[in-house]
């Protein structure tokens, strides 16, 4: 049985925003990435899945059940919203205890552990916390009942790199213990580090669903070079190169494939300068569209 299942899930609101005919299933034990630029419909899909909004058509279920018809199924769910806001006048520990009270099990020990890992002061008032610290409250809140399914919407925004690392370790640990993880992001490298499969969403539609291993074989790099002399277009017109632009001594392109192939090719050219970067998502999306056309 799939832990998450979306069937022809559609939500229309307004003119442009929303999601169209999303089909997706996430199996137990997976770490699944949901990736797309801002406003692509990631949050809408997640919110429909959680029962916060109602679909226009189609269905969404976790553990085979719809969240609005069977709200009790959400006891196995931990959710971290993209922006965390909590009852301002409460202390962190009171909020966490309130959260725990919904799950009918003793979470005190787990709260302490998580707070320790995330370096969170439980005695402070939520009001007085910085954005990053509020995010930590959100993380502890989402994990304290040891859920079997963890859904995170843009989890790392606001966390410093060290904390991101701890947080990802924490998620891996939960995953190792059997939890399924589903998270959305607009940062590809973040997803690449964590996920076993990834879905790309753009303008409300899933445009690609890939195994991470495939994606990793297909390392995407944006390469900008500046040659000593004029660069000929033919020199880099090899398979795996896309969006090649040559302008005199400068050239830029996106490379997908075995890094060594392109390194060899690069070494044949006398270079003055080079930069190799992670392409941003838009570029990869463009790439997909070009391929599909």
């Amino acid at each position, binding site marked *: 049985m799939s832990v998450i299942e979306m069937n022809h899930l559609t939500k229309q*609101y307004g003119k442009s925003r929303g999601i169209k005919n999303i089909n997706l299933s996430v199996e137990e034990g997976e770490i699944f990435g949901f990736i797309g630029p801002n406003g692509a419909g990631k*949050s809408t899909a997640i*919110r429909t899945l*959680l*029962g*916060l*909004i*109602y679909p226009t058509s189609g269905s969404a279920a976790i553990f085979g059940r719809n969240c609005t018809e069977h*709200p*009790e*199924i*959400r*006891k196995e*769910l931990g*959710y971290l*919203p*993209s*922006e*965390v*806001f*909590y*009852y*301002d*006048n409460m202390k962190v520990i009171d909020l966490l205890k*309130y*959260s725990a*009270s*919904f*799950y009918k099990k003793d979470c005190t020990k787990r709260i302490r552990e998580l707070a320790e890992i995330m370096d969170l002061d439980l005695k402070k008032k939520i009001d007085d916390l910085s954005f990053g610290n509020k995010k930590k409250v959100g993380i502890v*809140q989402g994990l304290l009942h040891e859920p079997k399914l963890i859904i995170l919407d843009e989890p790392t925004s606001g966390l410093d790199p060290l904390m991101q690392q701890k947080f990802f370790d924490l998620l891996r640990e939960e995953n190792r213990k059997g939890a399924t993880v589903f998270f959305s992001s607009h940062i590809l490298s973040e997803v690449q580090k964590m996920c076993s499969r990834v879905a790309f969403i753009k303008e409300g539609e899933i445009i690609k669903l890939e195994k991470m291993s495939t994606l990793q074989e297909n390392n995407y790099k944006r390469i900008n070079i500046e040659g000593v002399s004029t660069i000929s277009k033919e020199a880099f017109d090899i398979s795996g190169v896309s969006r090649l632009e040559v302008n005199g001594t400068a050239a830029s392109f996106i490379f997908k494939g075995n890094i060594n192939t392109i390194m060899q090719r690069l070494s044949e050219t006398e270079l003055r300068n080079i930069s190799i970067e992670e392409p941003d998502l838009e570029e990869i999306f463009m790439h997909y569209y070009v391929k599909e056309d």
Partner: protein
Amino acid sequence: MNMYLHELKALRKSGGGWACAMIALAALFLSLYPSMVSDSADFTSLLEGYPASVRAMLGINLEYITSILGFYSMVFAYIALCGGIQAMHLGASILSKEARERTADFLLVKPVSRARIVSAKLLAALTVILVTDLVYFLVTAIIASAVATANYSLSMFFMLNLPLLFIQLIFLAVGLVASVFFSRLKNVLPLTLGVVFGLYMTGALLAAGSEGELARYLSPFQYFDSIYIIEHHTFELQYLIAGALIVAAAVSVCYRVYIKKDIHAV
């Protein structure tokens, strides 16, 4: 139960504040009573100078004004107004605050149905109103006894105060149902004050005019006429039923709409 307790905790301060304010208002008015009674002839003739419609608007009835219960029924009009504001504010904010303070993403993904959330919040609001009214009644009864110059019936005093609860229940329900139609209610106060004062003024004008019994249905403040209660020792049944119908309709619409509502991201 956890949600109910959480709400109660969040509401107890404002509830206490309202009870104190209403008690202070009643105490202020009631403290004027002894001096008014001692000069009752002058006072009555002063009031007689007012046009009858103004007297009706202010809830002044010359026949009864010198008795503590009659005097209190004039005071009660303002207490009912306060109570109406408290209840409407409570109703309008208790569900909408989750969206306003952006905590809906926390509460609404917990393993409880939305109906249960509404019930817990409704119950907490009811508790706050009941406690406010009870405290208000006990303290004002003591004050009234202290200032009364003649014996008066405590049970009648209770009857006179009971409409406070009825009016509050109506406004609580109205507030609840009004709030669920907004996707995000930014500020509850203008809505509350607009509706409550609007209906209060409507009521006051109705009392002054001669539109008849049917027009009284327009304002909950006119459902429970103190003089009628003093004279007949009972409430006017048709208005009691009207109030109950409003509450039942508003609450059921509130449940239906809230359960089907989309909770959007911030």
